[in-house]
């Protein structure tokens, strides 16, 4: 099996296999209980440590999962996968400087993964001493992190933002007439107590490691989420009577788990680009990032009011959000659907129309085929190398649903607008690559086409597109929930076409995208 999989592994690792021309080197792990030998790999200025060896030396365990590897130490779970610089530690996301790699069938992570994971799991801090070729783990010396607090009223929503100089672990709970944030480290508060003139928030009080946000009435509730760079805790608060958003369920970020099917309840809408990443630009200077944000905001509002879904935007303003972070946000919130909104561009000026994409995984198909061949040949015997392909196969799990979702969007857009139907396509979009839910990317029109650039700016055209996408989500939701048995079919619905067969990852050839 090893022999059969090696070429596939090489293809999977791509450039990593070239970068990792060196062999693993012996190094040392220094812990409060003593020194332990570990192996490390140095490449492109980064030191990667053997995740299994480090966690074992600290008394924890590591086991393979379909989405990567799972660690446990002191009952705190950690997880990392192959395509993302984001890992999970408890309920938090950790950003690593590079993606983990497999070498000799074993996973190696940037040592900074343990910096984030051990502080949460064991109150330890990790550092790398290059001169001594040693990873040092010692008790965390906590320094107070400075905090800032602001409340901005946006119509019926009050946006509370707590900005911290560096990430701090915290819990959030609604206790009577207040939201309480309890930090797990010392905080340098900007003030003790402050009254606030706002329809939803009456004041804020810092006391020790606790921040209490007073609410104007008990029915004020909303969503909470985190943003990076700088680290911010954001609460969008509003009176429950003014919104059809479901009850104030605070997000429980963490590892997405397969549980009983629960239908489509949380949707993440991703307005493409942002900040200096403007996306495509039209002949009169209209920018993709601006149209995408307008459409996404309208879409979020319509999905909340029409479907009662909890909708989260990956960006709410003209800010830069990395592609990894967008998907990580959707995974963190355990979203049931992910839709990225974009405008298209072509050098052929009369290119026009809309198209919808879902992910293609060219290299994965090769690996999946090899896996099938190997499993057939070996009678399904286990081997550590299988983990390499399981990482990729985890992505395949959602491809069939993504295909159906994309098909529904494209069909509804064609029906509603009469713009040229460019169809459903596949391509290896970075923003779709790490999504652990059905995910699609819609290209509403060509901003490089003068006529479509003008249309895309028009509120009426945007509303028509939003209406079409809402109908598509509604249709997909009904179809999906009927198929998993939550809904009883009320009348014969035309089945959503475009779904690839479950085995397509292994069998499909000549796909339409890369």
């Amino acid at each position, binding site marked *: 099996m090893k022999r059969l999989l090696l070429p596939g592994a090489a*293809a999977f690792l791509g450039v990593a296999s070239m970068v990792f021309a060196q062999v693993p080197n012996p190094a040392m792990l220094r812990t409060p209980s003593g020194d332990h030998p570990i192996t490390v790999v140095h490449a492109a200025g980064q030191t990667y440590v053997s995740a299994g060896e480090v966690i074992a030396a600290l008394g924890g365990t590591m086991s393979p999962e379909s989405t990567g590897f799972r660690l446990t130490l002191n009952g705190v779970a950690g997880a990392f996968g192959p395509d993302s610089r984001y890992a999970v530690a408890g309920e938090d996301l950790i950003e690593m400087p590079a993606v983990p790699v497999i070498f000799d069938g074993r996973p190696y992570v940037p040592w900074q993964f343990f910096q984030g994971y051990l502080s949460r799991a064991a109150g330890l801090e990790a550092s790398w001493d290059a001169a001594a070729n040693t990873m040092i783990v010692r008790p965390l010396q906590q320094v107070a992190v400075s905090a800032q607090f602001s409340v901005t009223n946006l119509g019926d929503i009050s946006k509370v933002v707590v900005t911290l100089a560096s990430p701090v672990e915290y819990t959030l709970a609604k206790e009577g007439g207040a939201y309480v944030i309890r930090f797990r480290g010392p905080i340098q508060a900007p003030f003790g107590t402050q009254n606030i003139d706002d329809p939803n928030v009456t004041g804020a009080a810092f006391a020790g490691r606790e921040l209490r946000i007073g609410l104007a009435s008990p029915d004020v509730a909303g969503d909470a989420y985190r943003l990076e760079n700088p680290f911010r805790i954001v609460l969008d608060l509003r009176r429950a009577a003014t919104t059809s958003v479901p009850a104030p369920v605070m997000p429980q970020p963490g590892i997405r788990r397969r549980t009983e099917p629960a239908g489509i309840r949380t949707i993440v809408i991703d307005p493409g680009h942002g900040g200096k990443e403007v996306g*495509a630009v039209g002949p009169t200077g209209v920018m993709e990032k601006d149209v995408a944000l307008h459409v996404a905001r309208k879409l979020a509002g319509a999905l909340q009011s029409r479907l009662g879904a909890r909708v989260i935007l990956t960006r709410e303003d003209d800010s830069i959000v990395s592609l990894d972070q967008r998907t990580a946000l959707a995974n963190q919130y355990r979203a049931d659907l992910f839709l990225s909104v974009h*405008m298209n561009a*072509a050098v052929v000026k009369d290119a026009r129309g809309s198209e919808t994409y879902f992910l293609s*995984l060219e290299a994965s198909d090769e690996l999946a085929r090899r896996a099938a061949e190997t499993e057939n040949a070996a009678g399904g015997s286990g081997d550590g190398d299988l983990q390499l392909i399981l990482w990729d196969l985890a992505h395949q799990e959602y491809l069939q649903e993504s295909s159906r979702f994309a098909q529904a969007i494209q069909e509804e857009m064609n029906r509603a607008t009469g713009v040229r139907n460019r169809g459903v396509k596949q391509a290896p979009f*970075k923003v779709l690559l790490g999504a652990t839910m059905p995910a699609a990317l819609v*290209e509403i029109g060509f901003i490089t086409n003068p006529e479509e650039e003008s249309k895309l700016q028009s509120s009426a055209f945007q509303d028509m597109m939003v209406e079409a996408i809402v109908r598509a989500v509604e249709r997909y939701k009904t179809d999906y929930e009927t198929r998993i048995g939550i809904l009883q079919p009320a009348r014969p619905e035309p089945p959503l076409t475009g779904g690839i067969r479950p085995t397509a990852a292994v069998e499909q050839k000549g796909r339409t995208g*890369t």
Partner: protein
Amino acid sequence: MGRRTAVILVIALALASCRTEEKPITSNLSVENKVAMRPVALFYESPAQLLVAEQRNVALPENPAAALPLVMRELLKGSANAGVPPLFPPDTTVRGAYLLPDGTAVVDLGGQTLTDGWPTGTHQELMAIHSVVQTVVSNFPDAKRVRVLLNGGTAETLGGHISLGRPFTPNAALVQR
């Protein structure tokens, strides 16, 4: 009169050289580096928004490893037809191009626009990448897939859409038949 004669002479010489020295790029890596005019197929976007081959004779070494960067630079020069717009930003450079024994070709791109973040859309980004992929696999029989690098290293994307994390294989759906 003298100018006309010179033009005719140049055309005649060009035709003669094409007729006598057009040799395809060999797939044998160990051949000597003999330079000759060789036909190559360079892919650009047609008005039908598909990639279409443009045939061109280029002075190339026989060794494919040595020929690859030259073919890539020829592609980046753009179409001979002024009506066919370039797919890449005009300041794009080919820093290097390599053929690996496992059939992977590596094309290392550079240039200020790509480095700063290319403001483009999905379709153009996809077509630009596949113009490289299609050109490589059409001219170098041993190349099965193409890995695209930026400034010598891995990059997430060229324009915010298509992942460069894995090698690309040819996509027939993007090529005009």
